[in-house]
């Protein structure tokens, strides 16, 4: 799978309050959350981002609260994937669980400039910067996370496992 799009660049330690402020957490409707995506980092983002575009950020992206509303807001805003130097751990889990592709690459995070057109090969983790003619490599996705992605998210993974156990007569 290849993800190609224009990039939006953010700094280090983008927290989940910046991604989706708590004042909007009285709903879990993806479309409503998307309308306020990244609002406290860039109030113009939600209105200007186009489907398929890509967020690029520094270290520790998604730090702070456990709110799954953060990756949900990003995904529902149409963002194809997030490339960052590193991710906070709960955001990392949440993104895989809900099916938002994320890629860890300090080099890409440093070298990609706002507005660059990039292409990410989700299978190999190679990131091509079409604007600058550069190539970066993302950290490989752990095999277990690949299984979750292949299943279409954690819930599908869990229900398949339960079906398998039932068929094997393990259920009491």
């Amino acid at each position: 799978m290849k993800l190609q799009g224009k990039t939006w660049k953010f700094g280090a330690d983008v927290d989940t309050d910046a991604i989706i402020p708590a004042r909007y957490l009285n709903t879990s409707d993806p479309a409503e959350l998307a309308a306020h995506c990244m609002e406290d980092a860039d109030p113009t983002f939600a209105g200007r981002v186009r489907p398929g575009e890509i967020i690029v950020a520094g270290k520790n992206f998604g730090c702070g609260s456990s709110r799954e509303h953060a990756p949900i807001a990003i995904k529902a805003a149409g963002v194809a994937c997030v490339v960052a130097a590193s991710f906070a751990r709960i955001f990392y889990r949440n993104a895989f669980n809900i099916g938002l592709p994320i890629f860890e690459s300090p080099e890409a995070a440093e070298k990609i400039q706002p507005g660059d057109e990039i292409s990410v090969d989700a299978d190999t983790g190679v990131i091509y910067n079409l604007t600058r003619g550069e190539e970066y490599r993302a950290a490989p996705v752990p095999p277990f996370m690949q299984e979750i992605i292949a299943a279409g998210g954690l819930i599908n993974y869990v229900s398949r496992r339960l079906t398998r156990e039932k068929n094997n007569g393990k259920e009491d």
Partner: protein
Amino acid sequence: MPMTITEKILAAHAGREEVHPGELINVKVDLVLGNDITAPVAIREFARTGVTEVFDRERVALVPDHFVPNKDIKSAEQAKILRDFARRQGLTHYFEVGRMGIEHCLLPEQGLVGPGDLVIGADSHTCTYGALGAFSTGVGSTDLAAAMALGETWLKVPETLKFVYYGELPPWVGGKDLILYTIGRIGVDGALYMAMEFTGPAVESLSMDGRLTMANMAVEAGAKNGIVPPDEITRRYVEGRAKRPYKFYQSDPDAAYARVYEFDVSKLEPQVAFPHLPANVRPVSEAGEVRIDQAVIGSCTNGRMEDLRLAARVLQGKKVHPDVRLIVIPGTQDIYRAALQEGLVEIFLDAGAAVSTPTCGPCLGGHMGILAAGERCIATTNRNFVGRMGHPQSEVYLSNPAVAAASAVLGRIADPREVC
């Protein structure tokens, strides 16, 4: 193989003799937790698993605490999703308004988490229970949904950072100052994906309330969990309180650590985290002249009895500065009642403070103390990100309860020694 306390608890719950950092393991959970923001999403996802009943109705705790008492129609709808689910599933640990508390104050107090437990919660501050010698960590709603269905979750075994705090803590310096100082030293991702093990004489001298404050903010350094080795103070806290059997684990003396930090804290001052990161820490004497509009004393970080006692000691016989709103939020109904019986609530009221029913409220900019553009608040809470307590152009400064109380009296960030 020698193991750390974190590794031992993980191994026990994975049904294995030993585990190594970096391994992915499946573990049984002793308790899972959700609140009125995260559980509605989890309940929706739980329905998609095809499972109709939670794995154990005594091991799923739902605590509406963030936007309750319901702040608007939408949050009322969210809280109702929890209530309906709890009734339908017959959950024994659902806590209604008037009988509830801030989740991370409430569950330890009620004896629902204990030493040696493995707990996951859809709230980042679930790491609080490490103070009891448990492994506990925050996850998202979908992980909570899967754990409600399976009674298990997957975890990567973290490397451990060991922190050793030497020396006797000076007056007005406690768990909040130790953890703020630590985050200031290592940064907001200084413990990313790792366990933080808090040890040494200064930690051993902390009460359970102080330890809960420390473990609570491990996530602010990016950690997976924070943990304090259980001891006599732990035993006294859990005896007569724990609702389930518990077990004390200790790190082996030759366990492997990714790194060991040693801090002499005998001359530590109260610490203040400036906007807009919890790592932006300075000693209070270097705060300079920072006028404040509001002070908040409460939250899962500092809403416990010891915190209220400290604040009351500073506020006794004094008045809140005319330009300041002081909001005091006891963490649970039991803490509220104890504060009433000890006369603390009267001290707060006499000083001119507002005292609220338990709620996360202002900490995350929910309600009960939202800031306008340009306003500043000193708070005993855990995060000071942009817009955390209200308008994106407001500011939050983090401190211990004594500093927050002294600041409320003087109208600027102040050292408790200036008023006591």
